[in-house]
């Protein structure tokens, strides 16, 4: 990911401050999430001064492994109505494996989310999404997925971050519970964090960090980024609350 971040900074002029803003916004969200592990304030100086791990990736770009487990129940509408009156519906989903597998000079700053986004947004409009839960092994991965999903042009992720408030009270809420960066990464269960947080938001159960208008949420997951080709799986889905 350090190789990818350096390329993004070099090719598009993305700054550390723009990348850091994502980590800081997620920390702000985590401060209001009782289940997050990291709830101390984080300033831009804290971010920039954190220990170098693999240039330009710093400590506060990294997730911390933790223990944890998640469970969601997927059921037919009839069955679900017997359990709850707060039903959340799957609107659409898309997935791709082995992105750029045959490309010997892959664009390392583009993930399979580009293809996934094209499919998802044939079904639904971007402006109808109220909050996004984006797989966040590193803040740069969040920025790249915002671009790939078409919320801005490739390379404009830094400007997009500058122009928007990414906290749960902002105009583009991202990783509203703190994401893996501030909640912790529970091994391979880490990816489910985003799904569970989206469900809590849509069910109005996001204690202390509820997004005001939370009707529709986008959730993403990314697999491996080996050889910059995203040879694992990339996936996303949209869920919505219905009366």
């Amino acid at each position, binding site marked *: 990911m350090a190789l990818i971040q350096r390329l993004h900074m070099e090719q598009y002029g993305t700054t550390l401050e723009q990348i850091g803003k994502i980590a800081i916004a997620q920390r702000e969200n985590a401060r209001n999430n009782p289940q997050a592990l990291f709830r101390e304030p984080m300033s831009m100086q804290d971010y920039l001064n954190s220990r170098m791990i*693999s*240039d*330009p990736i710093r400590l506060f770009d990294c997730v911390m492994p933790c223990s944890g487990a998640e469970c969601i129940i997927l059921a037919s509408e009839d069955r679900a109505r017997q359990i709850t009156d707060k039903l959340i519906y799957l609107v659409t989903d898309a997935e791709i494996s082995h992105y750029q597998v*045959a490309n010997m*000079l*892959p664009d390392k700053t583009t993930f399979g989310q580009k293809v996934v986004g094209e499919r998802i947004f044939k079904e639904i409009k971007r402006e109808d999404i109220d909050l996004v839960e984006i797989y966040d092994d590193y803040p740069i991965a969040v920025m790249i997925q915002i671009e790939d999903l078409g919320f801005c042009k490739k390379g404009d992720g830094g400007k997009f971050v500058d122009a928007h408030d990414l906290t749960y009270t902002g105009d583009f809420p991202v990783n509203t519970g703190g994401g893996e960066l501030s909640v912790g990464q529970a091994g391979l269960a880490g990816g489910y964090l985003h799904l569970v947080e989206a469900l809590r938001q849509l069910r109005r159960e996001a204690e202390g960090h509820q997004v005001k208008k939370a009707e529709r949420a986008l959730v993403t997951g990314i697999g491996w980024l080996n050889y910059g080709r995203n040879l694992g799986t990339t996936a996303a889905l949209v869920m919505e609350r219905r009366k």
Partner: protein
Amino acid sequence: MAEARMPQKSIPKVNKVDQPFWEGANREKFLLQKCKSCGKVQFFPRVACVDCFGELDWIESKGTGKIHSFTLVRVPRNPAFKDEVPIYYINVILDEDVIVESKLIGDNKEKVKMGDRVKAVFQQTHDPAIKLPCFELAE
């Protein structure tokens, strides 16, 4: 109780598909695959051409290329590599237009910049049968 073992530096696990590549590296040659049908050159080694599934030949790369991206690994995942930090982990685009992940070695590696020209060099590992293809900055 078992004694705590010193961590070992990991080395490539050679398989049938990439065996010719590692044999080449041991002779200090950087080998690539070329499709007998469509002529596409590919890296890393695979069982068939990624475009047309054709049979493959092995060709020798000139071993020259340029730095596509790099990072200085300061916290290695495997603690056995602590004696090498910072490790100059690089992406190189070879002149044959394939991308390679490797490491930069040599006395002048601190001067590395994006786009710098590099050439392949081969580093002996603790296994006599395995040499690692690495790179040095070209003068």
